[in-house]
């Protein structure tokens, strides 16, 4: 019961947050210099042409009218059409969202187990050379800008040795394995970016617990070190680990615009940046809603998983 209530409450708040976000976005795009008509027509557009386009797009109406109309339609499940190219937003976003999720899932499938394994190993061999090396190397990766990681990977694996494609221009009709192959380098780059953070948190969460009386008890029961880490420390460290994993998963969905640009991956991030640039408000709204909802839902998932992972909450007295 507590869990359901929590979920309901959080979802309710999430909806409220999304609403606030859409309002903020509308205001933000409104005060951005220039507008859609100008950006569509470019530098060399005559004022009356711009005015005509503005009229055609309905941009001459006040913001609250446009927002109200958008909200009304949105609540009925109609995301509207892109002002810039007149396409249905659901259609415009659909494939890109799938591609973004594909990349995120592929990266997560590689990165999460890797991070957990490295984190557990580092905790097991803490304060050894192995641990310190891993710590330094991951810190190094954290501090490299992701586009640089991308360029280095491309330079090595696409240009020097032609193992993987330099651009991941995947199409919906590509077979799954080809898509996977084409996405190999962006997945690798994203893995480098997120593994370090997750791995360090896994290690820290486990090491943090190593001072606990129940770990001492396990040691005094004569349990082997590896079993202590995996069986005793890890289950109790799940909550912070899940949180950091979720944070990184959200990043994989929301924050990969740079990787998309470097690898020419047709994801949502690029669409959003483009839409902001041309002030295509409905598309921006849709993208930000997706990103915001992803963040909120993933956080909710983290909370639920933390509860499920915590016997205190799972098995109330």
């Amino acid at each position, binding site marked *: 019961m507590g869990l359901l209530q929590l979920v309901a409450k959080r979802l309710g*708040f999430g909806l409220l*947050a*999304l609403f*606030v*976000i859409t309002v*903020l*976005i509308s205001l*933000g*795009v409104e*005060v*951005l*210099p220039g507008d859609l008509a100008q950006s569509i027509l470019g530098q060399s557009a005559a004022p009356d042409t711009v005015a005509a386009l503005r009229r055609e797009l309905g941009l001459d109406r006040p913001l609250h009218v446009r927002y109200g109309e958008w909200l009304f339609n949105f609540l009925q499940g109609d995301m509207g059409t892109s002002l810039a190219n007149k396409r249905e937003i659901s259609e415009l976003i659909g494939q890109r969202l799938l591609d973004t999720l594909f990349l995120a899932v592929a990266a997560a499938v590689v990165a999460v187990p890797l991070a957990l394994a490295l984190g557990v190993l580092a905790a097991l061999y*803490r*304060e050894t050379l192995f641990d*310190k090396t891993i710590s*330094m190397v991951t*810190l*190094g990766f*954290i*501090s*490299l*800008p*992701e*586009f*640089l990681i991308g*360029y*280095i990977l*491309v*330079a090595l694996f696409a*240009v020097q040795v032609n193992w993987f494609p330099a651009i991941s221009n995947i199409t919906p009709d590509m077979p799954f394995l080809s898509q996977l192959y084409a996405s190999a380098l962006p997945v690798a780059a994203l893995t480098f970016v997120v593994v370090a953070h997750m791995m360090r948190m896994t290690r820290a969460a486990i090491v943090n617990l*190593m*001072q606990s009386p129940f770990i001492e008890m396990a040691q005094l029961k004569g349990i082997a070190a590896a079993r202590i880490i995996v069986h005793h420390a890890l289950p109790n460290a799940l909550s912070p680990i899940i949180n950091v994993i979720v944070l990184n998963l959200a990043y994989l969905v*929301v*924050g990969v*615009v*740079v990787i998309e*640009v470097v690898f020419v991956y047709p994801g949502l991030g690029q669409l*959003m*940046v483009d839409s*902001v640039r041309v002030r295509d408000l409905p598309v921006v709204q849709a993208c*930000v809603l997706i*990103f*915001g909802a992803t*963040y*909120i839902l993933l956080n909710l998932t983290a909370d639920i998983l933390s509860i499920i992972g915590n016997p205190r909450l799972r098995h109330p007295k």
Partner: protein
Amino acid sequence: MLFLKEFAKAGWPAKIGMAVILVYLFCAIFAPLIAPYAETEVIITSPWVSAEESGTLLGLDQLGRDLWTRVLYGARNTITIAIVITLLAFFIGMAAGFFAAVVGGLTDQLLSRIVDIIMAFPTLFFALIVLSILGTSVPVLIVVIAILDSTRVFRISRALAMDISVMDYVEVAKLRGEGLWWIMRREVLPNALTPLIAEFGLRFCFVFLFISALSFLGLGIQPPAADWGSMVRENAAAITYGIMTPLVPALAIAILTIAVNLVVDWFLRKTSGLRDEV
């Protein structure tokens, strides 16, 4: 003084880390004196001339300016900006976080929800909009990144202050009738300082990366001022041609990050009483 005495007893990783930081600070402060050329001086109007060819220490950058000079000035600009941003972020985040935790109730809910909303915004997107509206001048950049960063500081500060505010000494202060500001400043802050300083070290390093990512989207610090994040971006194209120039500012960031973390590790271990297991 006490710090120096304590630090003398630190292990070699922390000492190396500290040495690196001091070198960086030295470079940042004395950049104009150390640097062989002026910040924007073009030496040979050709990109990425090698060190031997140009007779410089690290070669030239994409506009034919001395890379070593740019790195030195980059230290100056980047570190200054990063420090200001981080300080501002911590001031905002800590003030709001402590306030939320100590006051609790509705205020806490409200502040936490506002932070949730900001965090639900994609970070780069937030920066994109605000920087587009206000322009990418350094002060705007500082404020925007500081606000984004402060959400995370808020969470940490709030959690820390929550733990501290259940301590009896805070109750004592409340029972004495102390005001909110006094409690935040004198009871909460000193006890939350250690983990916050550690966090400061990490956040500080992430600022470089964020500036770098922004410059990738064309929103970073405007040329010709040298900053490492933008330098990596401007020179990154050379990587595919086997020219290592972009790695120099990237390495500068990475080395500083590692150095700061070595010192932070020591500091944390020192103050938390955690020790290496023997």
